[in-house]
């Protein structure tokens, strides 16, 4: 092909582009088909671009075929092999009975592939599915490919869906930012569009503004960047707060049972963490049973696991209370040692029964995945755990305040001997309290199995944190435990970005050690003589 012909052709293309689209289309598409026949990589790449801009009805099919190496060209004809082995004419889209003669597959190189990628992005812009259009606009937004601008503008003009139109406009703005020869007014408007979008990507796009931009544009850009940064920092703080609440609810779940047993009986139960672990393993067993016997119930597995874990952990708790702790009342330090021994036994028992490695606990479908709320990324499992912690908290509060058993428990907490004198069977209350506290730990285990490794060491990793929560919050007051858990959780997560995870935790431990000096009985201490005993 001589240079002159090429030039003429180029001119023709330009003229065609400037002419009314309806007229332009057939001609430009022809140009593309001709280039497909040229058997040169640069022509093929160019042909892809032209084809997209021509808005030829078969453009999508052709480019897809090209991407898969199914596009055939030769002797002026362009055909495509369909996925099921048939052939069709690329120009008309009609099926052919046999492979056209003298054609060979159009070859690809990386340059062509890049053109195809961009083309598929642009083609998506006119896809009938709005979600696909939004996705395509996102792709263009990221690529900032100036050549996509005409298609984009055409798409904006035809767009009726609000969300898609916004995405398209943002993509257009992204391109205008880097397109130095665009009208200055349009570019300033583009900055505004990006400022409204206001996320990390918009920030990156704004920063991509070429250095030779006009001072006015630069000023607008700087203002937009600082505004977006401020907004993002706020969202980031919100995200950290969310993580903090999530950690706080985990701590609350792990510690609240401990708060009950410690509050009522003054017993430090070192085996509390193992109750959590038992709950997690109960979940594992329940899920295994459901998997083998009734897989269709899998989404309900946690609903079965909750009562099972409560019963298992509660029963073990009552057994410990009746078997060991009962004999050690009035000797809290000895109780601490004995329960530590029990925790070792339970850990080893689980290790022997289930093996030392982590066990896989599946997540039901409603707990997997995440969604975005403004600038926050929220995972469903964390959200459900917060909800669950709140439910457990309210339920425990109700038990303590509204049931006869709760009344008796509170009486024993405040003055054991007086409660006994009033006819409360303190021994029975002790056993029930311990069972309740352990059962709640079992419930915590079900929740923690969703976010942590289910291994024999699961409980160990929570026990010290749980103690911190209880000691910080004060004994015998569930609200204290709630506030303490949330405070520690949020403080931990807010410290993390500045101090790192480990230093943040150390700082909190030191804080609690110092805090205990100031208020030896925690935030919300029981007042009165009873606690001095």
């Amino acid at each position, binding site marked *: 092909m001589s240079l002159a012909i090429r030039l003429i052709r180029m001119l023709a293309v330009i003229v065609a582009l400037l002419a009314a689209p309806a007229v332009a289309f057939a001609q430009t598409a022809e140009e593309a088909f001709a280039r497909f026949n040229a058997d040169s990589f640069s022509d093929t790449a160019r042909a892809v671009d032209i084809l997209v801009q021509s808005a030829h009805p078969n453009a999508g099919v052709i480019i897809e075929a090209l991407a898969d190496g199914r596009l055939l060209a030769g002797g002026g004809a362009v055909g495509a092999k369909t996925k099921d082995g048939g052939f069709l004419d690329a120009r008309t889209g009609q099926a052919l009975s046999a492979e056209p003669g003298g054609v060979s597959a159009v070859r690809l190189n990386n340059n062509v592939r890049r053109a195809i990628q961009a083309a598929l992005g642009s083609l998506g812009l006119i896809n009938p599915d709005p979600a696909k259009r939004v996705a395509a606009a996102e792709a263009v937004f990221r690529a900032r490919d100036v050549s996509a601008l005409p298609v984009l503008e055409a798409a904006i003009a035809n767009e009726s869906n609000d969300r898609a139109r916004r995405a398209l406009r943002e993509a257009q703005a992204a391109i205008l930012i880097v397109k130095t020869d665009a009208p200055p007014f349009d570019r300033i408007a583009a900055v505004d569009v990006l400022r409204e979008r206001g996320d990390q990507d918009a920030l990156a796009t704004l920063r991509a503004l070429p250095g030779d931009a006009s001072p006015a544009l630069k000023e607008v850009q700087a203002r937009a960047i600082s505004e977006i940064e401020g907004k993002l920092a706020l969202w980031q703080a919100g995200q950290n707060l969310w993580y903090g609440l999530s950690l706080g609810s985990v701590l609350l779940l792990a510690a609240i049972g401990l708060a009950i047993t410690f509050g009522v009986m*003054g017993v*430090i139960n*070192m085996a509390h963490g193992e109750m959590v672990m038992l709950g997690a393993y109960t979940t594992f067993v329940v899920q295994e049973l459901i998997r083998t016997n009734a897989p269709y119930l899998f989404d309900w597995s946690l609903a079965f696991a909750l009562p099972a874990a409560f019963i298992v952990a509660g029963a073990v708790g009552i057994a410990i209370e009746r078997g*060991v702790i009962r*004999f*050690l009342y*009035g*000797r*809290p*330090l*000895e*109780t*601490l*040692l*004995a329960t*530590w*021994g*029990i*925790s*070792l*036994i*339970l*850990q*080893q*028992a689980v*290790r*022997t029964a289930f093996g030392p490695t982590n066990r896989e606990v599946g997540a039901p479908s409603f707990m997997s995945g995440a969604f975005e709320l403004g600038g926050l990324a929220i995972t469903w499992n964390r959200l459900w755990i917060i909800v669950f912690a709140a439910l457990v908290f309210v339920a425990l509060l109700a038990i303590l305040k509204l049931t006869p058993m709760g009344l008796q428990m509170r009486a024993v907490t405040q003055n054991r001997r007086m409660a006994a004198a009033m006819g409360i069977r303190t021994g029975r209350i002790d056993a029930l309290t311990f069972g309740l506290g352990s059962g709640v730990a079992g419930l915590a285990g079900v929740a923690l199995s969703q976010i942590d490794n289910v291994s024999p060491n699961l409980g*160990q990793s929570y026990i*010290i944190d749980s*103690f*911190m929560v209880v*000691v910080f919050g004060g004994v015998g007051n569930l609200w204290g435990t709630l506030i303490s858990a949330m405070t520690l959780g949020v403080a931990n997560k807010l410290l993390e970005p500045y101090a790192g995870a*480990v*230093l943040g*935790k*150390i700082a909190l*431990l*030191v804080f*609690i*050690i*110092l805090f*205990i*000096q*100031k208020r*030896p*009985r925690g935030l919300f201490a029981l007042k009165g003589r009873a606690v001095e005993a």
Partner: protein
Amino acid sequence: MISRFLLSNMDRRGYVFLALVAAIGLLVPLANLLVPAGSPFHVSTATMSLWGKYLCYALLALSLDLVWGYCGILSLGHGAFFALGGYAMGMYLMRQIGSRGVYGNPVLPDFMVFLNWQELPWYWWGFSSFPFAMLMVLAVPGLLAFVFGWFAFRSRVTGVYLSIITQALTYALLLAFFRNDMGFGGNNGLTDFKDILGFSVQAQTTRAALFAMTCVMLASGFLIARGIVSSKLGKVVIAIRDAESRTRFLGYRVDRFKLFVFTVSACMAGVAGALYVPQVGIINPGEFAPANSIETVIWVAVGGRGTLVGAALGAVVVNWAKTMFTSGFMAPYWLFALGVLFVFVTLFMPKGILGTAQGWWEKRRKPAALPAAEPAPAE
């Protein structure tokens, strides 16, 4: 005067203990060095090091018994003082490596070269000197205990609350020492020691000397602890254990007595750690694990709380059992055994081996006499 402080009120049990420690400290190194390997009386170097380790634990248990058995402070963080003493010794040993490390840096230990550090951090200064390092072995745990105790005892943090915050203390240190940035070797700790005072750490004679030294320190620790508890000060300390408020109302400054005992105990634990490190050959943050400290408590409980001798005995017995268990086919069941031991001792042998044996002995000796009603120590 000093000897009277140390030896007054020494009971027969104490003399037996001292004689036993002296005999072990003398005979075991001799049996290792002079008796030929084939003889039935020969003690291998490995066995000697193992028992050296037990005796370090015995000193640690002794220090814990001083605060728990006599002052009622259940410290769940004594492992921290032990480990700090160990780290002080480890830092001295690291500096002795000199240019023999893998990277051959004459000043910086290998792990610092590995982390691209350019110069020695200030807190490593002076550790090439043995006397300074030994001072630190005492001073670092002692100072930590003093500051910690100063706050805790003044604000009257007692009972389980104190136990929990001592546990938080060792846990915080565990996390801190795991960090590479701390400059203590991070996860791997300090190891690969070469010399101590110019003698090779691996040499048989050095091992024997370390063993003998451990016995000397155990005996000294016992004498000091014994001296404290049988002095007038010790009586007040015991009074604090049994009735803290009453002692305070009688006009004693309870917090000062507690602080004194706690600090002395921490120094003893530090010495135990310092002797432990060259014999074991490594110190890493795992020594700070709260579980280790709790295990120390069980040694004291098994041997007999508030007897000193019993604490040392308990440490040796439990650790010997641990070695027996974990080296054979029973290894997976060691935690069962340890757990059962915790429960059994607290439930059925609250006075430990020594207390139970003594009670049994006394009953046999004068079966007619009614056992004196002894009030149980309040927590």
